[in-house]
């Protein structure tokens, strides 16, 4: 057992596919930003939260100064020429053992995230997968044939669709991201096959994703309040 010492949320990207002129984490759903939803879900689970900023960083800096004063904001001034792996490598400063990494454009069911972090304490590396639904999915293949409830994956692939996709969430050592020039899933690919856990989440990458996420959030909040 090794506790998860912190979370690194990657919020530096351009969000160009969504085309709203702001970082995707600053989009409001049900009057709350995607970033605030993430931070509020993470706060009871990890002692430290780092938020990596780049594109329109001033918006996130002001938002955190007002609502989330206990997060560390890490700047990636080279966000236009680097990718998420580089951002979370920068965001890992001061993290030394086991870290939860996640994209800032995710809307995650809090119970699902709690369960993921809890299981992450038992594994050196735990990868998040979710049911395939996003428009730019990186699919995963399941070796043991248990497609309904996967516990391991053995490959990432972009060309052939499978029922599960890479959730842009994992728990592992900060050392994994030393080489920060590739996609995040490419950095963890050498460690496959690896344990996975399902996470109930939606990514907000395109206008279609956003509509799906809104509908999911609405149905989810009505089911939990019923």
């Amino acid at each position, binding site marked *: 057992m090794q506790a998860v010492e912190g979370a690194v949320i990657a919020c530096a990207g351009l969000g160009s596919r969504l085309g709203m002129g702001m970082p995707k984490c600053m989009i409001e759903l049900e009057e709350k930003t995607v970033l605030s939803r993430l931070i509020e879900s993470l706060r009871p689970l990890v*002692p*430290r939260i780092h938020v990596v900023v780049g594109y329109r960083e001033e918006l996130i*800096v002001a938002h*955190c*100064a007002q609502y989330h*004063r*206990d*997060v*560390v*904001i*890490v*700047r990636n001034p080279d966000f236009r020429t680097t990718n998420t792996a580089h951002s979370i490598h*920068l965001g890992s*400063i*001061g*993290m*030394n053992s086991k870290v939860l990494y996640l994209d800032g454009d995710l809307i995650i069911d809090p119970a699902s995230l709690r369960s993921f972090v809890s299981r992450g304490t038992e594994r050196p590396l735990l990868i998040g997968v979710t049911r395939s639904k996003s428009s730019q999915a990186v699919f995963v293949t399941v070796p043991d044939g248990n497609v309904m409830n996967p516990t391991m994956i053995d490959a990432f692939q972009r060309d052939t669709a499978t029922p599960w996709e890479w959730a842009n969430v994992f728990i592992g050592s900060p050392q994994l991201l030393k080489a920060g020039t590739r996609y995040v899933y490419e950095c963890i690919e050498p460690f496959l096959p690896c344990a996975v856990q399902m996470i109930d989440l939606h990514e907000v990458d395109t206008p279609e994703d956003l509509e799906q996420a809104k509908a999911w959030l609405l149905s989810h909040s009505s089911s939990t309040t019923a």
Partner: protein
Amino acid sequence: MNASETSNTAFCFDLDGTLTTTEILPCIAAELDVSGEVATLTRLTMDGLIPFEDSMRLRTLILGQVPLVQVHEIIASVPMAPSLLDFVQSHPNNCFVVTGNLDIWIAPLIAQLGCDVFSSHAVLTDAGMVRLDNILAKDEAIQTLRATGRFDRIVAVGDGANDAPMLRAADIGIAYGGVHLPATSAMQAANMIINDAETLCKLLKAL
């Protein structure tokens, strides 16, 4: 034992509005009933709208009228962020105050902190006037510290426009907004932005 106790890291802190939870010079100015004016001048300086050197000379000229004993009494009562004070006092050999404030004014605070200081230098003349001899360039303080060869890594923390060169010269620059939002130029020069003293201390201990 945490990481910062085992590594050769120097931690450089701005004083006014970083270690102290209020700006010091407007407190002294209250003695002359010009605290509002000096606070405005301090704010404009923090934001980089007036060169720090010009502003410091002007503020010294005004505040030099307050007797030194009185200045020391005022400064000794300026509150400091408890967690940062504790961090500095627990790591006196690794911590440094880097301030544009005057050595003859801040002596009581430095004694309380128990660490070394880089500051502007002034003397009290026989006529009882404060004569400003040298205004600290904060990036030069970092270079001086680096030249000693004592440290593998230098971390700097500050909030004002005059801290930007120090944040840029350090290996890790932290714009700190515990008292007010850091100056834009300080944020642009920094690797990180932190708005809370406890959060800052947690990070410094983990570095």
